[in-house]
């Protein structure tokens, strides 16, 4: 095939790419994004994973190492099939935080540290440059295949500028479609659509070749499998085809890491994703794409070995096999497929790395030089960022070309894919740790990535370009595997260790929470002038303290500064005071961070702080609410328990009371009934008749008294007793009571000891009720006093507060201290009922009467005999007549 025809095809293809990208961008600009946003477009764009290294290299790899090439496809497949939830999480969190690159993700998670981002950017640049060189190399080599004259001699002069022209074309394409605007979401519809188109070309070319090889060169699948089988037993290649488990493990791990950390993969997977729902389709479709891409690798490799000369480059079998078979059109299609793989990789990689370089190197440096306050989102800055990105794209593609020229197209480039993979994999521990573990912090990320990066440079990168030797490893172990395992293991270990012992700052902790819990973070807002900053502080305080309290505090502070209105100046005094007050509500660390950010800087926006404040307040309220509910429950349980105990006691008391009443009623009734029956007997003598009749009379009287007492008690206890309040002289009442009680055991000559002058007191009370109490107490004394010469002492005192205290004391043996508290209980009859004649309700009734009158009655211990003290207020509590 003439070289010129090839060049023209190539140019036409490139023009087609420009057209596709342009059309997609135009459609997006007009808002027609429906088909652009289709999950299949997204899935196809992920195929940027299959660069020229995979397109050409996989066959070479399979030819040298058998099935090992599969590991490069297995890693991503495992991630997409086995960890789709993790991918969704990554995309969601990254979209929430408007992350623009893998460096930006790491920096945002670890306290928005730009130094960390700059370090990740450095790794990306170092890893990407040779990788881009590899793509240019593959394009040049594929040209070479067509440029070989029949004698196998390359017409070098015709090829001299190939790599350069390709580089220039790619840089132009990338700048044109990669830096059209500074859209907030950093999406590039034109580029993505062009890449999706190229993905189809790649796959179509590879499958067409595969079909040609299996059905055209070989005799169908059965014959093909037999050839593969034969090749695997060929002693010349058998050793290379041996399975090496440690290397397989490392390769699968590294390629799985690559799908997440390679700048171009992060760009298409995360940054260009409209939302995490695309992963529903991509979750199965992308592994299926990889499967299709890998299906014919081994047949092509085996057939190349069989049919092509032994010195032919296995990396170019895909081209040389159809070319040698005279299939020029197929060769051209494969060439375009490889060209697609190379160009799409360079374009996306350049966009991704250039974004990092411009955002984390150039713009911060420019801002530092210009001394523009961070956050002043001026047009000036916007222009600079766009230009910085264009410059970075140019620089990166140029670096790749320079590297390609310098390396002289050496075979060393072939290993560059794995070198780049293992370099970017050093970001993986910090990335996963940041997403899954709140304890991960910036110091840990620094230490881990820093150490991993250094080890990678020393053990993987420099040896790959011929500086320094491979890691000395035990025999039978692969140097690359050992270096990767060592660097990643130490990286992870240091990251976790330093994180555990380090303490994250508040911004970091908040970002950690946001990443790990996938909580919606905040929009950036513009910084206001210093004067306006008091307002957000007030808004923040209001959310923590409530509107009134916050406003009151701010007003007080403003007044103290001699200002009118409610916004004080942000003096250190005011800020310190505010921080201390806030610390009381939300803890000192948070308060410090909040004040610091609002009053001092803009790393976190006001919206951030409001959210922190809201969350702190919500958590506090929730805690308080739970505590209150808990306390309420405890209180209710205690009340229920008390009520239950009280009811049980009451129930026991009620049963006891009813039993007592039953007994007290049945006893006199028994006598009455028995004797009245006896009286019916005509044989009973007259004296007996008279005696029995007297007993019946007595017992009937006892029944009547008991019923009276019960009625009285029930009226008093229910609080329905009618009082007839009048003014009364206490002396008269006592005299009347003594007279009334004198009938009780009248045979005993009681000596009454009174102090008459003190008794002349005017009281406002119910005289009948008070008299009832006095008679009861005096009668009891007459009944129970066991002294030979009984004496009753009555003493009256007048307390300062008014009213009266009446002590009634006899000279008997008194009441045991143990029973003194019982005597006012109902039915607390102490001694032989024969001597009492009552049911034991007397003192209970007295107690009820005195309480009703607003006073009290109690036993007065230590007086020798039985002693009762009656306390009366000046007038009853209710106080009316």
């Amino acid at each position, binding site marked *: 095939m003439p070289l010129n025809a090839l060049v023209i095809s190539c140019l036409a293809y490139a023009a087609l790419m420009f057209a596709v990208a342009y059309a997609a961008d135009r459609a997006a600009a007009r808002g027609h994004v429906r088909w652009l946003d289709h999950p299949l477009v997204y899935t196809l764009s992920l195929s940027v994973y299959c660069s020229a290294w995979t397109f050409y290299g996989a066959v070479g790899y399979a030819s040298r190492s058998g099935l090992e090439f599969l590991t490069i496809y297995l890693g991503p497949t495992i991630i997409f099939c086995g960890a789709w939830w993790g991918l969704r999480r990554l995309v969601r969190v990254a979209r929430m935080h408007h992350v623009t690159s893998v460096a930006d993700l790491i920096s945002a998670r670890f306290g928005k540290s730009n130094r960390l981002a700059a370090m990740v950017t450095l790794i990306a640049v170092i890893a990407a440059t040779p990788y881009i060189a590899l793509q240019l190399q593959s394009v040049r080599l594929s040209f070479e295949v067509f440029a070989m004259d029949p004698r196998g001699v390359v017409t070098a002069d015709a090829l001299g500028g190939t790599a350069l022209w390709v580089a220039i074309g790619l840089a132009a394409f990338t700048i044109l479609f990669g830096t059209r605007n500074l859209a907030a979401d950093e999406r590039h519809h034109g580029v993505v659509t062009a890449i999706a188109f190229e993905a189809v070309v790649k796959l179509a070319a590879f499958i067409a070749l595969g079909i040609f090889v299996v059905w055209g060169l070989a005799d169908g699948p059965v014959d093909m499998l037999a050839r593969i089988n034969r090749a695997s037993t060929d002693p010349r290649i058998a050793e290379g085809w041996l399975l090496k488990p440690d290397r397989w493990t490392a390769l699968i791990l590294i390629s799985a890491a690559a799908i997440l950390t390679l700048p171009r993969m992060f760009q298409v997977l995360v940054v260009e994703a409209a939302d995490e729902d695309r992963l529903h389709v991509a979750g199965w479709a992308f592994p299926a794409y990889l499967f299709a891409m890998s299906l014919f690798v081994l047949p092509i490799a085996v057939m190349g070995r069989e049919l092509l000369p032994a010195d032919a480059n296995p990396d170019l079998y895909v081209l040389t096999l159809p070319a040698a078979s005279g299939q020029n059109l197929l060769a051209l299609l494969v060439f375009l497929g490889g060209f697609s793989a190379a160009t799409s990789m360079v374009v996306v990689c350049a966009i991704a790395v250039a974004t990092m370089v411009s955002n984390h190197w150039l713009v911060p440096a420019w801002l530092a030089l210009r001394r523009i306050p961070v956050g002043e989102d001026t047009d000036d800055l916007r222009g600079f960022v766009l230009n910085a990105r264009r410059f970075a794209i140019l620089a990166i593609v140029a670096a790749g070309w320079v590297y390609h020229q310098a390396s002289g197209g050496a075979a060393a480039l072939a290993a560059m894919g794995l070198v780049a993979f293992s370099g970017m994999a050093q970001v993986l521990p910090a990335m996963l740790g940041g997403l899954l573990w709140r304890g991960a912090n910036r110091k840990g990320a620094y230490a881990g990535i820093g150490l991993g990066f250094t080890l990678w440079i020393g053990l993987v990168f420099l040896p790959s370009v011929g500086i320094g030797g491979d890691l000395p490893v035990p025999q039978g172990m692969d140097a690359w595997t050992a270096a990767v395992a060592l660097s990643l293991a130490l990286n992870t270990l240091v990251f976790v260790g330093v994180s555990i012992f380090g303490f994250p700052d508040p911004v970091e902790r908040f970002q950690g929470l946001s990443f790990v819990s996938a909580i919606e973070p905040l929009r950036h807002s513009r910084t206001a002038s210093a004067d306006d900053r008091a307002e957000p502080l007030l808004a923040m305080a209001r959310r923590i303290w409530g509107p009134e309290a916050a406003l009151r505090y701010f007003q007080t502070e403003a007044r103290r500064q001699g200002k009118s209105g409610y916004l004080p100046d942000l003096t250190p005094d005011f800020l310190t005071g505010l921080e201390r007050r806030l610390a009381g509500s939300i803890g000192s660390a948070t308060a410090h961070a909040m004040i610091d950010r609002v009053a001092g800087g803009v790393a976190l926006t006001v919206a951030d702080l409001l959210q922190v404040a809201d969350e702190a307040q919500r958590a506090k309220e929730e805690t308080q609410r739970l505590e209150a509910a808990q306390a309420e429950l405890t209180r209710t349980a205690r009340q229920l328990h008390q009520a239950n105990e009280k009811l049980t006691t009451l129930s026991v008391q009620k049963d006891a009371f*009813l*039993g007592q009443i*039953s*007994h007290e009623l*049945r*006893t006199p*009734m*028994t*006598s*009455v*009934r*028995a*004797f009245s*029956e*006896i009286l019916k*007997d005509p044989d009973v003598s007259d004296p*007996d008749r008279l005696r029995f009749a007297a*007993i019946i009379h*007595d*017992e009937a009287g006892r029944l009547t008294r008991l019923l009276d007492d019960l009625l009285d008690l029930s009226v008093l206890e229910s609080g329905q007793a009618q009082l007839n309040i009048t003014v009364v002289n206490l002396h008269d009442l006592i005299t009347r009571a003594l007279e009334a009680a004198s009938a009780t055991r009248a045979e005993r000559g009681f000596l009454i000891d009174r102090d008459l002058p003190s008794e002349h007191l005017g009281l406002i009370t119910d005289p009948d009720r008070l008299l009832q109490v006095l008679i009861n107490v005096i009668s009891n004394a007459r009944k129970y006093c066991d002294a030979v010469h009984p004496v009753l002492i009555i003493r009256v005192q007048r307390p300062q507060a008014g009213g009266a205290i009446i002590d009634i004391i006899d000279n008997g043996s008194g009441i045991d201290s143990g029973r003194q508290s019982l005597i006012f209980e109902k039915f607390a009859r102490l*001694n*032989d*009922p*024969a001597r009492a004649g009552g049911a034991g309700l007397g003192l209970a009734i007295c107690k009820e009467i005195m309480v009703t009158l607003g006073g009290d009655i109690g036993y007065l211990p230590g007086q020798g005999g039985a002693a009762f003290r009656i306390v009366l207020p000046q007038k009853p509590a209710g106080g009316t007549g």
Partner: protein
Amino acid sequence: MQLDILMIEDEVNIAEAVRFILTRAGWRVDLHGDGDGAIQIIRTQRPRLLILDLMLPNRSGAEILAELRQDADPELAAMPVLMLTARGQVGDAGGQADAVLSKPFDNDDLRAMVRKMLS
């Protein structure tokens, strides 16, 4: 001559009535009015029937009955006991009595019950 009936009852009028009724029916009846000392009197008198009031001062009829049933002398432990109660219900203590009579009672019922227990 052996005592037929011993009655432990604190209400003198009731005790008087019961004694009158049972004496006229032909039995020898003795009275005691307190829980204290009741057991001693039962031991010395060894009545053929014990009439026991449940509510007694100092020592309840139930306590006396329980002690009696535990007595080492099998004749005492097996003594027929008629429990008198003015309470609505007898409760556990009454379970050990051979018969229970609620106050107020019918004189004929009392006589019939005693006759049955003594036969």
